[in-house]
């Protein structure tokens, strides 16, 4: 099992969710996050004084998937979240040791 953690542009969330649904992903967890990468921050203006916003708002999607679905998930997120402009985000993949469905007590790939 793998945990796919993707940082994407917030307005791409719906596209990514739809793409994941299409390949059979059953659930995702979404977190509003802030950060910076190569895009850096941007400059804003308030009452005549400029200031740099170092951390831009992004959305983080966590998807737990079985190993055989991993490539499709990465592909789906990559395609759906891509605009080609700087700041599109990144996908991280972790090994997932265990998963348990609280309601039934199922574990492993059955719980995904």
């Amino acid at each position, binding site marked *: 099992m793998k945990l796919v953690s993707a940082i994407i542009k917030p307005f791409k969330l719906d596209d990514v969710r739809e793409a994941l649904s299409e390949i059979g992903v059953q659930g995702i967890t979404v977190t509003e996050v802030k950060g910076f990468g190569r895009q850096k921050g941007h400059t*804003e*203006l*308030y*009452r*005549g*004084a*400029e*200031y740099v916003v170092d951390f831009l708002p992004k959305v983080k999607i966590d998807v737990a998937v079985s190993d055989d679905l991993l490539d499709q998930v990465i592909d789906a997120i990559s395609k759906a979240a891509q605009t080609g402009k700087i700041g599109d985000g990144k996908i991280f993949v972790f090994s997932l040791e265990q998963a348990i469905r609280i309601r039934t007590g199922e574990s492993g790939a059955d719980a995904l």
Partner: protein
Amino acid sequence: MEAITEVKYALDTFYFLVTGALVMWMAAGFAMLEAGLVRAKNTTEILTKNIALYAIACIMYMLIGYGIMYPGDAAVNSWWPGLHGILGSDDNTAQAVLASGGDIYYSNLSDFFFQVVFCATAMSVVSGAVAERMKLWAFLAFAVVLTGFIYPMQGYWKWGGGFLDQLGFLDFAGSGVVHLTGGAAALAGVLLLGARKGKYGPKGEINPIPGANMPMATLGTFILWLGWFGFNGGSELIVSNVAEANAVAMVFVNTNAAAAGGVVAAMITARLMFGKTDLTMALNGALAGLVAITAEPLTPTPLLATIVGAIGGILVVFSIVSMDKFKIDDPVGAISVHGVVGMWGLIAVTLSNPDATLTAQLTGLVTILLWVFIASLIVWLILKAVMGIRVTEEEEYEGLDLTDCGLEAYPEFTGSKGSGI
């Protein structure tokens, strides 16, 4: 004829009360404007301050303020009105009204009501400027003195028939008496208080501290704009004949025109200076236009009123930027809007009112500025020595909502018990 006199009395009293109620609503405008321009962590405290200062103003003005400001024939001299005690419940009898031949045309208590909301407005100006770092109870203690004594004293000098009035100083609805007073008291407080932590960097950099809620600030500005029709319109004091009704309409039109001029001028100025259209400057521009026309909303043509307001709108942008250069930290721009533009309003009277002289206007301006600034400075100094006026650095970081009021304006993560999650 008697019936007509009585109806006129009733109408003018009614007009006084309704316009007074409009001015009272400006307290809501200030509360929303200030709540929008501070950070979320100081919202409950600024709202508490706003409703508390309004209540304190009402009580203090009833107890001593009104007597000081309007002593009538009981005044000691043109400088010192004397103390005349608590507002009573006496009012005009029908016989006295009829016998006066129209000279008595409104209820005494309607006059008190109209005046007390002006007093509260002057105090409302102060709260925004000292926001986010002043101790709540030190501020309220200051409110007691300003509304009970400092404001009524200079009010007597002009509207109560004191020496400024005798000198020919003109201030229709209070660019000086109300707004400059609020601005000068705020300036004294801000100078003693210092800037918010992090506002100015060690190398002289100016760090903006964006307000939390622009819709609220915009709503507050619109409420103030509405209330101002009472502020200036009511200050005509009478509406019950053709000439006066026309005058009231003129005042409404000019008040509106000046605010519109202020918005457009401030927006364009900010766009040219910063390259972006700054909403907060547009809001301050509206208020600047209103403050500018307040000293004389009757004699200008609507076009001139628009120009007077527009100059206020340009002034306010430059003033706000300059205040920051001098490290005078005013989160809502109250000193610029009410103090600086209030002065412009007093001078602008000379543009359209043939009875105005520059000498009298400047004398009034300087007198109000010095009196209020020095008296306020002394009171702030005493408060600083006795109870302290600034919260600790840690409290400022935490936010005054939690440290002063124990209540957040926007509680977000309070756990499941009782939170409704």
